Every structure is written in structure tokens, then in C-alpha cells.
């Protein structure tokens, strides 16, 4: 379970799906809290707790679906996905010098 962004999708933070029940979400939340107790991982705990508050019951999940502007993919997500697809090519010395001559 990855907890690295305050604005991360709460479903991703808790490792649940939108179709899951309140009880399942709560169980995952408790598992996350045991993994990130507040005294040892205060930031992660805060994010887990915030994520849970956003989707803990039907109404809050519906409110998240309707009103959360961060829901869904952002441009940064798309950029990260594309960047992962191709690794940065390693240009050799001759290529670099050739490109430099072209720019000259």
C-alpha cells in the first residue's frame, strides 16, 4: 500500500475499490492504521485517516465521486505513465557531437 501524496486517490491509499462495502473499507483502513501507527508514522497516518474520511460511507463516496476535483487521472499521471513506457535513451559521444554540430 503506497502512501506518498496528500492528494492521492483515497481508494488507492486504502487499497479498495469504489464498489466495496463500508465494512471492507473500514477493515482496510484499520489494516493501514496498524501498518502506519500515528506515533511512528504521523504523516502516513494522517493521509490514511484523511483518505478514510473521504470514502468511509456511501454518502462520502458519492460526494467524492461528484465533487472531488482530484478524482480521476491528472496530466501528471499521464506524463508519469508515458515516461515509464520508454526509458531515456543513452546517446553516445558521436551522437551528442553530431547533434551539437547540427544546432551550431
Amino acid at each position, binding site marked *: 500500500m503506497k502512501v506518498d501524496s496528500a492528494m492521492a486517490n483515497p481508494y488507492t491509499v486504502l487499497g479498495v475499490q469504489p464498489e466495496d462495502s463500508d465494512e471492507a473499507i473500514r477493515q482496510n483502513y484499520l489494516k493501514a492504521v496498524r501498518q502506519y501507527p500515528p506515533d511512528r508514522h504521523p504523516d502516513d497516518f494522517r493521509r490514511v485517516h484523511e483518505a478514510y474520511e473521504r470514502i468511509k460511507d456511501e454518502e462520502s463516496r458519492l460526494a467524492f465521486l461528484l465533487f472531488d476535483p482530484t478524482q480521476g487521472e491528472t496530466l501528471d499521471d499521464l506524463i508519469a505513465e508515458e515516461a515509464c513506457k520508454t526509458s531515456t535513451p543513452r546517446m553516445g559521444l558521436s551522437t551528442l557531437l553530431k547533434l551539437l554540430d547540427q*544546432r551550431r
Partner: protein
Amino acid sequence: MVWPRSSSQRYEQEAIDRLGHPTMARKQNKPKTLILHYQRLSIDALYECIDRARERNDARAGIDIAKECYRRDPSPAHTQLLCEQYHRRARQLMEKNLATEAMTVLGHALLLGPGNADLLRLAFDCGLRSGRYEAALQVFDRLKDEAEKARARVLLADEAVAKGEAAVLGHADPPLREDAGRIRRAFAAYERGDDSAVSAELQPIGLRSPCAAWKWLLVGLSARAREDPDAARKCWSRVNGDGTAARLAQTLMASLVDPSSDVATGGGRSPLELDGWHPNPRVARLHQIKAALGRGHAKEALRLCSSLIGTIDRAERQAYALRLGRAVCGLIDVEPGSGNTLQRIFGPQPEDHWYTRAAALRLEDTDVDEALYGWNLYLRELGSSPAIAAPLRDRARSLIWRRMGELNERIEADGPFYGDDDTSCGAVACYRKSIAYFPDCLETQEKLLDSLRRDGETRAAEVQAEHILKRWPTHVSSLLFSAERCVERSAFRKALDYLQRAREAEPFHGNISRQMIMCLLLSARKRLDKSKIDLARKDYEEAETFHQATDDAVPLYCKWAALEWRAGDAPRAEELVTRAHAAAVHPLQSCYQLAIELSRAEVPAEVRRRFESELAVQWRGRPTAANAAAVAGLTMAIDATGTDYEGRGTHRRAVSDYLKRAHGLDEFTEAQLMSVGQFLLADEDYRLAARYAATGAKRFTENLQFPLLMAKAEYGQGLRRLTRKSRKLLARAKEQAAKAGDVKTLAELEAVQYFGTIDSRAGLLGLLEAFAEFEACEEEGDFALPRPRGRRSNGRSRGARSPAEPMLFEDI
């Protein structure tokens, strides 16, 4: 041969004129003629010819002329002149990339002498560029300046690394040869992805090596390959100078800093992309889109999206377009209803009416009216949205109506003259609609209650509180509000029921106990007025049980003592008086309260006379700030309830006298000064109020209410205009309010300054005008705020105004 003077002069002039076009002379195939001509010219004429050749930028002619000068007289000056001409010619050849020719010319120059630094530098560069390394190294040996030598070593290292030829490596010194070899091997290892080999090759290269720039370049390239742009940037920023490595580092750093650079040129394609520097064109394009959105160029962003989608394979184009559309629409200022444009670019969004929702969310921050319109549109489309299951649609509608209610509250908070009333149905109506779709949402019910209270719809708010309590019987806010309403109607028992329920729901709510005490005291008063002594006593006994150590028990014991005297139980009354005195901070407070309560309770006259005389002794005592604030507060509370009793006038005069004597005490706190000032203003003792306000303004400069109080007190005195001191204080307070962004206080200060008092209609309109001016709202032109009659064009009033006199408007 010596020519005759006159003919030689003439010949000189003709030669000079002819030499004005040496190219033409050469074309006439008369090169030797030129040299012969030079031989016949005097030295001065030769100098003049050199100047003209310099102006024409003809270095070859300059060389010929300088040679002639040197041939006649190989003085140091002529040697220098010839060197200069060679230098100029070599520079010209280098500009045309004729390094070999330039080197030949410079070789002649170097034969004449040691040469200056520029010449040697040029000769070295030419030698490297033309591949004549041996000659370049000979020039290197002649360099004296250490900085030039270091530069030359770097260039030699560049050549060694870039060319790797045995020729240059063979002439280089062993350390340079070794480092250059390491760099080349490191590049090979980098290309095959062997970063550990790169590190191993680079590690022995020192920071002072001429190949150090190449080392940092490679380290940066490795960091870039590891997707660590910060580390790459750090390494490349350490590469300085004008060598090949430095130029490469600058270009690579430009690709990191702004991969979406230069969107406006090149048809939206960055030069980096054209150069093939960027590894992934899609990533570059997405960065460009993000940058365009960041700059607010929505059209440019949509154009880039369109071109990006065009580069995607057909098979995945539709899905990618949907994803891109959702990612972009959240960032773009799209008007609701412009879905056609977006659908044309990104295709239809089948799963949800994404554009309308995203547009409404986005507009909430900038244009609330448009956001409301967007949500209205979305509500209409909600029925056909498969993203929200049918059982949840009513809930969704309820949430959206609540959201619209909150947006309406934001509009309403700006004032009644702002916002377009036609598009919004009001917060209350929105909350009612939300409740109609889903009544079990406590939050919406609370918002409706708050909205009704804010609008002053007290009866409707009471009904709403009842509704809430039917569904949520222990809802504390509703219980407290209902109790408050019951107290206003003098239904104290019912209020106590509500408060008791609230106390059971929240036992640690400190305010509930105090409200219960107040309620019981009022109930006891009502019962006492009806001569129900026993019931009133029970109320006081019950109130005592709710008392906490921090509460002020003086009113309770004073009222109770009055009751007991009325009932004839003097010992009990005396005991309660003792308790009241013990609870009071100063005897004056308890004596004053006791005197009031005894008078109200209509106890026997001798009892009243006794405590009046005790009170009189206290009045004559040394005044203190705490007492002054306490008596002022108590008197104001009595006035607020509209209570009248025998001896009230005497008490008022005594209070006024006490406050006069207390003025000037240094022990007054800010709150005490404000409390006394406000009491005096309400009591219409304007002169004393102004004095207290002036003291407060002087001691507590951060409190903006003191200047306001002072101005009101001065107007109350009937002054034609505010005093100079008051005007200065108001001006300073306005500055402080403007700096702090306190719009309300600023408007109050403006209104007081120009309109006398904000209680009048004129003051209210002035307040609105001040708001409009402060926020520079252009809608102010929708209606003209009339000026009060008698107002001069420069804003000053003509005559005196009293607060009681209404302002007259010609237009209203």
C-alpha cells in the same frame, strides 16, 4: 627612379584613387602592378592605404601594404603592423572555417615575433581545428598566461576526447592522454548501460584535469538515465567554460529545465523535439499542454491536445482521448454548455457528463453564478448518467442541491446588491430541495437551520429546529436554539426542558449550565412577580446546583436574598447577602446588585434604605477599573432588559459620577475601556464616552473600535464636524483596516466619517458604497447611491447633524 614631383604627386593621387577599388584592379589581372604601385608610394600614403583597406575589411591588401612597409623599414612598428594584418586575415579565414589557411597565415605572423595573447590563442585554435596538432602544441609552449594555458589544455582535451585520434593523443602529455582515453571508454560504457563501469573509469580523473568537464557531463548523463533530473542538473551546472563539454552541458540542461519550451514557435513543436533531444515526444507534448494550461492558454492547450491525439494509433486513440479529456477538463476554464467543442477534440464521454461537472467545479472558485448554472445543467443530465447507480441518484441530487445552497450562501454573503438574483433560487430553497430528495442528512438540515437564522426567519427556523429534533432528539444546537426562542417568549419551563435535554446529550458543554442558570433566574423573577415565592425559591435552589466555581454567583445570591426578604425570612436573607459579598470581587458590585434586586423585589423600605446607605458608602470609595466596568456592564444589562425600578435614576447618576471619577485610571484593560465606553455611548453621556474612547485609542492603537467609538461620541455631542484628533485617529484606523483586509471595519470607519452613524439608512448606504469602492465593483453603476441632502460636492456636510435626525434623500 625619382619621379618629377608634380607628376609623382599626380601619380600618387591616381594610385590612391585606383587603389580605392583593388578588386577591380585584380580583375584587370594586374596583381604585380599593385605591388609596384605600393613601392612607389610614400610611407604616409601606405599608411593611408592600410587605413582604407581596414575600412574596406580587405585584409589581403593590408598584408601587401604592410609587407611593403616592412620591406622598406623592418622596424618594430612595421613588424607589429604586419602581424596585425596577418592576424586580421587569419580571423577572416577562421570565420569562413578555413582553419588550414588561417594557420598558414598565422605561421607567417609567428615567424615575425613571439606574438600577443590573442594571436597565440587564435593560432592554437586554428591548429586544433585544422588538425595540425604539432603546430598547435608549439603555440601552446609559447603561451605565457596560465589561464590561457588552462583553456588550451581544455580544448586539447576536447579534441582528444572528441576525435580520439592517435595524432592528438600522441602529442598530448601522458596524463591528458590517459584521461581522454578514460572519458572515451566511459562514454562507451554509458552507451551500453554499464553505469558501474562509467563510475570506475571516471573516478581517477581529478577535478583539475582538463577532462574534468567531460567527467561532470558523463555523471550528469548517468543521472539523467536514472530519471534523476535534479542530480543531472547539478552536475551539468558545474561545467563551465567554452569547451565542447560546456556547450553540451548547456544544451542538455535546457532540455531538462523546460522540455515544453518555445510552444509559440515552430508550430507548437519545441526545438528540443525537432532536434531529437527528447526521448519521448508524447511526454514532451504533455508537458507543453501542462505549461499552456499553467499560463491560462486554454485554446493553445486544446490545440496541442488535438495534435497529440492525432499522433496516437487508431486502435488506442479513442481511449487515450477520453483519458486526456478528463485530465485536461479539470484544469481548463470551460464554460458549461461548451461540451461540443470538447467532444469534438476528445470524443464523447460516454460514462459521465464529465465536462459539465468538471466545468461547474472549476467555476466555483471564479464565477459562482456560472457554477450554479453548470450544476443545474448537470442535474438535468444526472438521470442518464450510468456512473451513478439509480438508487443513488436521489442522494446525488440531494448533495448537488446542498452544494448549490452553499454556493448561494457565498453569493448572499457579498450583499443584496451583488449577484444575479435571477439565476439563483436562494440558499434556503436549495437546502429545502436537497432535503426533499434526502431528508435523512443531518448536515443539510443543519445548514437549512443556520440559513434561516441568518436570514432572520425566526419562526421558520423554529419549525426547522423542531423537524431536526423529531429525527435527532439529542441534536444540541437545535435544542439550544429552541431554548433561546422559548426564553424570548418567556416560556422558561419549556426552555429548561430543552436545556436539560441538551445537557444530558452533552454533559460537559459549559455554556448549557450557564444558560440553565439564566433561565432559572428569569423563571424565578417571573414567579416572584406573580408572588409565587416558594416556586421562585425552588428555581433559585435549582440554579445554585448548576453553579460552577468559575461562574459569577453574585446575581443569584442577590436575587435570592431579595426573595427571602420579601418572604420575611431575614436570617436566610442575611446569609445569602454574606454569600453574595463573599462571591463578589469588590463590595460595590454586590451592593449595587443587591440594591437593584431589593428595589425590584419590593422589599420593606427599611431594608432598602439600609442597603442604599451601604451602597452610597461604596460609591464614595476609591474608584477602580474593575468596579467601573462591572457597574457599567450591570447597568447596561438592566437597560437591555428594559427593566425599571424605583431608584433607577439615582443609581444612574451615581454610576455616571463613579465613571467620571474612574476615568484616567491606568489599570483599565482594553476590554474594560471598551465596555465602559459602549455603556456611556448607549447612555448618551457622549462627552465622557469620547474621553474613554480617546484613552482607549491612545493606549490600544491596534483596536480599531476606539476611533469608531470616539467618532460616534463626537457626533452624539452634536459637533458639526469631527475633531482633528478624531479625524487623525479615524484615518490611522482606516489604514490599519485596509492593511489587514478588514473590509467590514473599514466600511464602518468610512461610513462614520462621512455619514455620521451607521445606524441610519444613510449610514447603511454609505457602508455599501464603501464596500463597492473597496472592491472596485463595476456593478455599482446599476443604481446611483444618493448623497444626503446638504452634502457638499467635496464630501463635507453643510450643517450640524444629530444622530436622532434622519438623513434625507432627494432620490429615495
